[in-house]
């Protein structure tokens, strides 16, 4: 066991896997000498050399395109996109190419690239260093989308992502990079992609969340407990595929659902969870399915604190659901 934060968990897990897998390559802007702007790749250049830890020119489509080509030839490229907000120059490579290679080639050319990227607000970054656009990627068949909410999950999920035969978007909650520290086992363990984690069991309301918002939900739990609401908190961990079974089971028990995410609300992934629940468990529902989400504006700067869903907003939604 070692106590570490999320960024350290990323760093160790990359290092361990690079030691194990000589075909693994890390590439991206400033990942080498600089160790990444968040330090997630610190030390890798020294240990593995510039051929395996590749500082690229400033071009996201070049990074992802090159990673795809590496992967088709048998390497395991793990690309870093400095901020999720800067992934769009590579959007064509991701949605048109990476996501479809296996399918369009009839299985001849599976492209397995892991794209790591920090996302989410809370770092005073304004709208180009704060967005959460997981829904774009979830809505793109062929991509796997994963997001951890703790150092422990980071290790287990990142390992699974790197061992998966499919392309994986690995979304890292940057606001939590250094705020949560916990024991992480030193030995290898895989957290299965597609399985949710029931963070806390409860009987009154199901609270579904993922990524950085899980932490906010956790902070809302004692507040809810104080008001005698028994909340079952589910951390989806994996957004595509997502573990609808765990959600539905919970809803059948509680009859009430709140979904919390940081992304803007309209057409966010919360809508999918809501739609799935009302498709599969409408008779169990005792209240409207409530979404707590980012407001439908570009991510603000000065007013970031009012923009981000806080434990109080979640509490309010829980109250609304439970008192309906």
């Amino acid at each position: 066991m070692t106590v570490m934060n999320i960024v350290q968990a990323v760093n160790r897990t990359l290092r361990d896997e690079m030691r194990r897998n000589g075909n693994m390559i890390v590439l991206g802007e400033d990942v080498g000498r600089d160790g990444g702007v968040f330090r997630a790749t610190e030390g890798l250049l020294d240990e593995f050399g510039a051929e395996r830890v590749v500082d690229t020119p400033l071009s996201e489509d070049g990074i992802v395109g090159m990673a795809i080509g590496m992967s088709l030839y048998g390497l395991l490229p793990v690309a870093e996109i400095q901020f999720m907000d800067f992934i769009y120059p590579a959007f064509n490579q991701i949605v048109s190419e990476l996501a479809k290679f296996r399918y369009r080639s009839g299985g001849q050319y599976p492209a397995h690239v892991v794209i790591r990227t920090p996302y989410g607000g809370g770092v005073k970054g304004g709208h180009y260093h704060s967005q959460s656009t997981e829904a774009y990627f979830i809505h793109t068949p062929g991509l796997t989308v994963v997001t951890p909410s703790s150092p422990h999950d980071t290790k287990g999920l990142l390992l699974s992502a790197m061992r998966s035969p499919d392309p994986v978007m690995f979304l890292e909650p940057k606001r939590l990079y250094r705020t949560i520290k916990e024991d992480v086992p030193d030995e290898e363990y895989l957290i299965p992609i597609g399985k949710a984690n029931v963070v806390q069991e409860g009987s009154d309301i199901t609270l579904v969340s993922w990524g950085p918002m899980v932490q906010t939900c956790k902070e809302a739990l004692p507040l809810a407990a104080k008001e005698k609401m028994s909340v079952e908190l589910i951390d989806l961990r994996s957004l595509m595929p997502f573990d609808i079974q765990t959600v539905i089971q919970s809803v059948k028990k509680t009859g009430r659902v709140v979904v919390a995410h940081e992304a803007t609300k309209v057409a966010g992934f919360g809508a999918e969870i809501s739609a799935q629940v009302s498709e599969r468990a409408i008779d169990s529902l005792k209240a409207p399915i409530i979404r707590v989400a980012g407001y439908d504006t570009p991510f603000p700067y000065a007013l970031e604190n009012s923009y981000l869903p806080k434990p109080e907003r979640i509490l309010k939604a829980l109250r609304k659901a439970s008192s309906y």
Partner: protein
Amino acid sequence: MEMLQVVRADGEYDAKLEPNLRDEDLKKMYRYMLLVRRFNERMLLLQRQGRIGFFIESTGEEAAQVGSAFALARSDWVYESYRDPGVCLVRGVPLKTLVDQLMANADDPNKGRQMGVHWGYREWNLVSISSPVGCRLSQAVGTAYAAKFKKDNIVCVTSFGDGATSQGEFHSAMNFAGVFKVPVVFLCKNNQYAISLPVRRQTASANIAMKAEAYGFEGVLVDGNDVLASYKAMKAAVDKARSGGGPTLIEAVTYRMGGHSSSDDPSKYRSTEETELWKTRDPITRFRRYLMKKGLLTESEDRRTLEEVENELVSTIKESEKVPPPTLYSMFTDVYAEMPWHIKEEADELMGEKGQ
């Protein structure tokens, strides 16, 4: 910048420039060129008859395809273009496999998942084509990087049109190739048009080959209607790449003799004079003249080859048309390595419906 040419339009040639190819190979090249020409014509006809859905011909571009493909090793990788049936054939893809792709039938290794001319054959290191113009170039750079990393002695070639040079992804790929000095060859087949846009309005640069300088490596201008020049240029580039010399951009100057695709009418945007002019530069006529001058081809051999090619096409089409379409279930596989629950639900639902 000078343009490399070995054989002139009238079949005269510069013996000092002739590449070192066996007579056998020269004849094979010619046969492939004929096959590509007739393949194009036949497939366009099938498309007009509604027997295949969509087709893009490469008539006029046979020399650039066949010449460059001849310069590659079996183990080299190719990110070919939709105008490269000749490259596929030279690399060993059976004619039937190409026709299967156009028919999108159950024998297509791509499982009928893509529009016609989107070739892709793992067995021959031909990487599955996609439609978005320009996005394959950086992938080719990545493959070249990987090969170099693994110390495999292979070169990665990617072929694309003049229009593709305008995409941002062209730039990223060229830049990465220069920075990482990988064994990649960029082959731009400048056929003068991107659908309706003539190349002089695609870019204000004097030519395309010179764009390589901006990335720190060499650009080469070659007569793409001259199969020997096309061979030579590619051979030099792959030799250089293989020996650690890094990337090359080749601009093969050629002409799209037909429409952009089976849905295009080029008379709207170009003149008959222009097309007539380029007919006088036809790569096949030129090579035929060369071979005859060299005594490697007679009129009767020529006729026989054409007949063989025709027969091969007719019988192949017949065979491909016998193959059934892909199974319904195949619509749902290969999205992921393992089928996730939500796709399984959808597949089950559809299969259930059809089972009723």
